């Protein structure tokens, strides 16, 4: 049962590119643009912590898996690449 659960989760997993699309949507709703560069600073784009929450919840909606996490990891996130890495990694947990 356990391995089946893991496999199902893997199947529902979103790729880095899919998460990037969702992130672009979150920003677009606020009339902001997601730069192509992964090194772009979140502070400059105006992507704040509640935007991160929104993005994580959108990923949850797509995969059907709850993504729970502590705040310290969140505080280390500074760039677009950090956001994508964090969410890709989180889906593996």
């Amino acid at each position, binding site marked *: 049962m356990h391995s089946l659960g893991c496999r199902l989760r893997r199947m529902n997993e979103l790729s880095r590119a899919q998460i990037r699309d969702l992130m672009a949507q979150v920003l677009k709703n606020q009339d902001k643009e997601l730069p192509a560069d992964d090194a772009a600073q979140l502070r400059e784009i105006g992507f704040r*912590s509640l935007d991160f*929450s929104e993005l*994580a*919840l959108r990923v949850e909606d797509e995969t059907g898996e*709850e*993504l*729970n*996490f*502590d*705040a*310290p990891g*969140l*505080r280390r996130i500074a760039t677009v690449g950090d956001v994508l890495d964090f969410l890709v990694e989180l889906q593996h947990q």
Partner: protein
Amino acid sequence: MSEPVDTQLVPPSSVVLVSGGSRGLGLAIVTDLLDAGVRVAAFARTITPELEKLAAEHPDRVHVGSVDVTDLRAAQSFVREVEQRLGPIDGIVNNAAMGQDSLHAHTATDDIARIIETNLTAPLQLTRLVIRRMLAKGLRGRIVNITSICGQRGFPGLVAYSATKGGMDAATRSLARELGGRMLVNSVAPGFFASEMSAVLGPTQLDQIVRRTPTGHLTEPVEVTPVVRMLLREHTNINGQVIVVDGAAAI
């Protein structure tokens, strides 16, 4: 509320039970009470070498045990051991608690339940257990609940934790009424510590709190222990209060 007033004074506590006494503020409270000549029973999930050392230094005045505060049965047998070794308990410090560092939307529901069980249900049950024994013996005593500035001020990442601390502050007031002067019941609400559970706030948030604190520093356990000792030992008429120890950060 219109029952006859009990004017007999509540004597200083002589045997004090401290939950979560193995590190941080709990360990500082145990150390301070021992220095004041009090007999102390301390339990924690894990007994640290520091607590072990205190027990070895004062074998006749300390009783320690490895008890998870949420395990009521274990707490019950610990209380019985304490009474046999040190005498009847006439003071409790509800200090054991778990921290939180996660936004409410992203906190697992199991974690919310665990925080409430550890920080609210368990201390209420432990208090019930001890006051039943005190009332049965006709003892008077003191109860000190260690809460937090989070019980009255908001901080992100600490939603469930704040709810438990505010809950204990509310329980403090109602218990003070209910116990009709037989026991003095108070909360001590520290601000954030630089160490231990305040790893719950990031360095940026802690810096911000320091900047807004008139005394210019985060709270240290040794700044809290004298207040706890006063509530357990001194003749005051303080009852049903929440005493904030935070350098006026929240004012």
